[in-house]
């Protein structure tokens, strides 16, 4: 049986796993944004707290993914829980680092003018700083997404959803006729998702970057 014949038989499984994989990544990314952006906003002007937060996020990224998923089984059990939390932790560094860099790169002359014109802290953040930091923040999201798409495959090891299950099945049945096909399906799905997300981010970037900021 060729690969295509194999795919024709189980393509619904592949599609389901792909959708589940995308949803898993978006959940992890969403949580990372909800946590990371406010933390960045609170710490980007400070010295030590900012360094501590970014350092901690960097440390999280160095934990081998197999180990992190495994460690999370103890508090969170199996399945979606540890998978989403692990991905969130991995996404924190790119999200926060870019948010901080973006906010810090806003021209001090611009923020000083805003302050001198009588803008309050929140108004300045909402109307000046975040819009100006947005392109850099968006790049952080793009990087985080690519990272999560590949790490997300490990979720299968803790009974999580996604394309990792196809790969894991392939590995488990190594030596049987279709083992390679399963692995290829899982990997190709992830590559496909990566390309799609990248296109999506390029479009969002184009549509949402304020016109005065483009090159």
């Amino acid at each position: 049986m060729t690969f295509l014949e194999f795919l024709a038989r189980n393509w619904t499984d592949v599609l389901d796993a792909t959708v589940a994989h995308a949803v898993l990544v978006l959940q992890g990314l969403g949580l990372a944004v909800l946590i990371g952006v406010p933390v960045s906003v609170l710490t980007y002007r400070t010295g030590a707290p900012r360094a501590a937060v970014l350092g901690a996020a960097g440390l999280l990224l160095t934990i081998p993914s197999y180990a992190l998923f495994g460690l999370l089984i103890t508090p969170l059990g199996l399945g979606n829980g540890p998978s989403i939390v692990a991905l969130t932790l991995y996404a924190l560094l790119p999200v926060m680092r870019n948010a901080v860099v973006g906010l810090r790169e806003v021209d001090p002359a611009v923020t000083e003018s805003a302050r001198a014109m009588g803008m309050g802290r929140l108004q300045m953040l909402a109307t000046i700083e975040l819009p100006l930091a947005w392109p850099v923040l968006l790049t952080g999201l793009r990087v985080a997404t690519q990272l999560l798409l590949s790490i997300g495959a490990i979720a299968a090891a803790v009974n999580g959803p996604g394309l990792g299950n196809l790969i894991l099945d392939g590995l488990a049945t190594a030596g049987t006729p279709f083992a390679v096909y399963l692995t290829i399906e899982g990997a190709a799905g992830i590559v496909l998702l990566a390309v799609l997300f990248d296109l999506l981010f390029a479009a969002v970037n184009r549509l949402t970057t304020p016109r005065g900021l483009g090159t």
Partner: protein
Amino acid sequence: MTQPDTTHRTTDVTHTTDTTGTTGTVDDSAMIRLEKLCKRYPGQAGAAVEELTLDIPAGQIVVFVGPSGCGKTTTMKLINRLIEPTSGRIHLGGQDVTEMPAHQLRRRIGYTIQQGGLFPHRTVADNIATVPRMLGWDKARVTRRADELLELVGLDPDIYGRRYPKQLSGGQQQRVGVARALGGDPQVMLMDEPFGAIDPLNREALQNEFLRIQAELRKTIVFVTHDIDEAVKMGDKIAIFGDGGKVLQYDTPERLLADPADSHVADFIGSGAAVRRLSLTRLEGLPVPDWSVVEQRADAQTRESALARAARAGHDYVLVLDGERRPTAWLTVGAAGRQDGADGAADGPSDARTQGPAPGEELPLITPMGPRHSLFDALDHMLSANASAVAVVDGDGRFRGVLDMDAVRSLMNTEARHSRDGSDALQEV
């Protein structure tokens, strides 16, 4: 201007504690009054600004000038409390604003800085509309205001309103910066080296344009610069800062140049103070010496006698006036009356050369000096046209007199004496 009780009280305090008596009298026209203002940063030995008391009169440009690190920008930022004072009071239009919510205070004060600080993600019109929108103006009024201000600073609203800051040149950005600072129609403007980043040519154009706008709007302006020439040009009054935010001298440009308070001030002004003063002295209010004149239509005999009179008066030339008493030409007295002849410089009578025009020859006169010209212009004209004198006219172009080198010199000396006599406003010496 109404002054609430608090102002009276604090004003009294100034007077009882100020033993030097140099801070001047209670001046109701002061728009901004800084009172014993102090700024100290923790961990620094000296104060950034120490016990500064300064009145800034309404409708005038007061220039803070001094070397970098002297506290002039800090002082400016204390006024809109971008930097909060450690102690002392700030009064604005008779109201103590030291404790009022900073954002309310700032919306009443325009602010421009050297880097422009325009919001890059907003159009020019939106930038200008920032403060009006915060003040809650309705949409139509905001739009009208933005258009009006763009026109004021010489930018076509239809073309530039929808552009983004990076699509403008540096000079245009600075114009928009000024327009934005004027957005909420503040009475007070703070400007921190607004033209500092502009090339010299455009800089001068912007300065002139800004002076034109100011003549119209009469805002109270604090203008910070490190360039004494710009200070002399822009300022109605100049405060020279020394180290530690101390004002070494607070005076009109004329008095500052004629009579620097101490050697620090003199050093900062540098050489050429006398030449700078020339450009500050407008012909308008000066007594211009009379000169020998003759009517254009006069017959030959009248001309002859005019030439003879001029020769006796020691004048090399007779000024020819038309029926409206407007100067039209110079008439050479020449060898007939005087030893030295004249050459044919078209634009005014020139100094002796060996082969001058014959006596009675007319030399056309191109540009007489008007009331807005300065002694500097007059002198410049003489030097560049190789002429020994220039005709001076009033606003309607009618003859007032003639200035020659000697007249300029004696006028400068009289002016200097006037300035010294009137120098009573030294502060914080």
